[in-house]
């Protein structure tokens, strides 16, 4: 128990140090690194957000692209209508959250593949609507965002720090959920939804809450992304890969853990940069190979590698000294 608490404190301290170091990235004044950092923070937001519904609750959601695209277009349209940029980001997050709540009420009663398909198709439908609704969204021509009147360097720093701030919020959200009854309830739902309902969990409320939480920061990140790149078009922000990549990142680091998706996001970005940029022709195949390798050689993710080993050792020790621990249990 004490050892666990110490481990926990060390993990929290290391995370804070890592965040502080990353936040100091602009000091190197390397715009390429800063761009990577912004991308990494964005990936972390997507993976950590997916983790709430996919990792904790075990619902295979492919809705990330829908939330991201909806956030991007909401933010862009609101900014175009004159709303200050930061407010547009907040509004985009709330819009995505409201959308997820309604969508969740409609499709979270579906199980397994049916839920996966429904969540996947939502992005396709939004893509079509966005493409067709030319008067509001600019249609297939895309949408330009208002120019910001500060220097290029200052812009790079602004977007980096903002994205990082949302990523830290996503991390905090995961930490909070994991230690709160919501996280415990979601874990019960993942393992046996009928039994979860029988022990008094309002499964509909919990699932919809998880779905809404998995959307809010993705929506904000989408709006931030739109402000960052100045120009968005439907196939860019509603891409199916935007739904799949966060799942791969979370699985890479360890789905259902707090830090896993963030670590997975950073590793994924590193691979994307190192491997795929150099193999442009076969970058999709490289991603495919990564996925296949991940499933066969690292099914619990990197963190699963660490904790899995630990668990096995504990179980073995318990098995040897059952009588002993019974005595200890009685004494305590």
């Amino acid at each position, binding site marked *: 128990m004490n050892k666990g608490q110490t481990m926990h404190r060390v993990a929290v301290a290391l995370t804070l140090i890592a965040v502080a170091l990353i936040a100091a990235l602009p000091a190197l004044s390397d715009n390429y690194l800063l761009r990577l950092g912004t991308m990494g923070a964005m990936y972390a937001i997507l993976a950590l957000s997916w983790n709430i519904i996919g990792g904790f609750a075990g619902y295979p959601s492919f809705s990330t692209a829908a939330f991201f695209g909806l956030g991007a277009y909401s933010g862009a349209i609101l900014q175009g209508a004159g709303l200050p940029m930061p407010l547009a980001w907040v509004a985009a997050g709330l819009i995505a959250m409201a959308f997820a709540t309604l969508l969740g009420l409609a*499709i979270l009663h579906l199980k397994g*593949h*049916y839920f996966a398909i429904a969540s996947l198709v939502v992005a396709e439908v939004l893509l079509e609507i966005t493409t067709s609704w030319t008067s509001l969204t600019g249609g297939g021509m895309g949408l330009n965002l208002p120019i910001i009147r500060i220097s290029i360097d200052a812009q790079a720093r602004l977007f980096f720090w903002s994205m990082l701030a949302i990523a830290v919020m996503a991390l905090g959200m995961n930490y909070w959920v994991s230690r709160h009854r919501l996280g415990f309830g979601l874990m019960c739902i993942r393992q046996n939804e009928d039994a979860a309902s029988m022990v008094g969990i309002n499964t509909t409320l919990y699932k919809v809450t998880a779905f809404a939480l998995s959307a809010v920061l993705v929506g904000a990140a989408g709006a931030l992304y739109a402000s960052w790149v100045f120009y968005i078009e439907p196939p860019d922000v509603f891409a199916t890969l935007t739904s799949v990549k966060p799942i791969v990142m979370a699985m890479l680091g360890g789905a259902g853990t707090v830090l896993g998706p963030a670590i997975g996001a950073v590793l994924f970005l590193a691979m994307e940069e190192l491997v795929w940029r150099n193999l442009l*022709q076969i970058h*999709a195949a490289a991603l495919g190979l990564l996925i296949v390798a991940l499933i066969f050689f690292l099914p619990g993710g990197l963190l699963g590698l660490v904790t899995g080993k630990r668990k096995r050792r504990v179980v073995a020790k318990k098995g040897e000294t059952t009588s002993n621990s019974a005595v200890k249990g009685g004494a305590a």
Partner: protein
Amino acid sequence: MLYAQILVNGLILGGLYACIAVGFSLVWGVLNVINILHGSFVVLGSYVAYFAYVHLGIHPFLSIVLSGALLFALGYVIQAGLINRVIAAPVLTTLVLTFGLELLLNNAVLVAFSADYRAVQLANPMGSQIIGGIVFPMERVMATLLALALTGLLYLMLAKSKIGRSIVAVRMDPEAAALMGVKVKRIYAVTFGVGALMAGAAGSLLSVVFPISPLNSTEFLGIAFVVCVLGGLGSIAGAMVGGLALGVIESFGALLIGPQHGLTIAFSLLILLLIVRPTGIMGRRGYE
């Protein structure tokens, strides 16, 4: 007369859709695996037909044997070598795995054949027949009839043959089937192979109707999804009904809203159906 023509067009399209979807439905129903590779299997079938025609002079209607056999082998190997190892894992695992394999396969096809659209230019096209004022494009009609015949053959195979009965038994209760001496993993591999076979054969038939490109795989996969949800998962008849329904809906939808929105209508319908009636129009289960 216009409506009759559109209905005929829809039914012709729908028969092909049924053939695309039936293998996908079989794999989903028996293995509980959503095979994201299915679209690429169809595309591969079309390429087999294309090259068989261009280099060997075999008509696409005959090369279904070739594409079916090749795709069966590919499917069998993928299931036996890879998917069988994680068949007991949660839904997300197999879903992501087949997605990863799809990225690999589709990229390979893209590199091998490029994204350019190709078309089978038949030396002796059958042209069109006009019966009662309705135009019947004969290649398409033949392709559809063959597609429906193949689907019927699959039905017979499941109902009559020993291996078909094993597949049905595994679908109903894998543990009981194992106790009765069925080698469940082998049946899984055969089922996946048969699913790929149907995709490949459908690809051959489609090669006389649609241009061929690796970029089509997503659309074929989407069609398979929609047909399964429309017709209800797990029955050949469901796939038939779903396929024909989608074909007709798409044809009339194209008339009403414009041809570019065909798939959008299908997808919207899909979501609506999932919300309201997840078991499909037929609402029955089981390959019986």
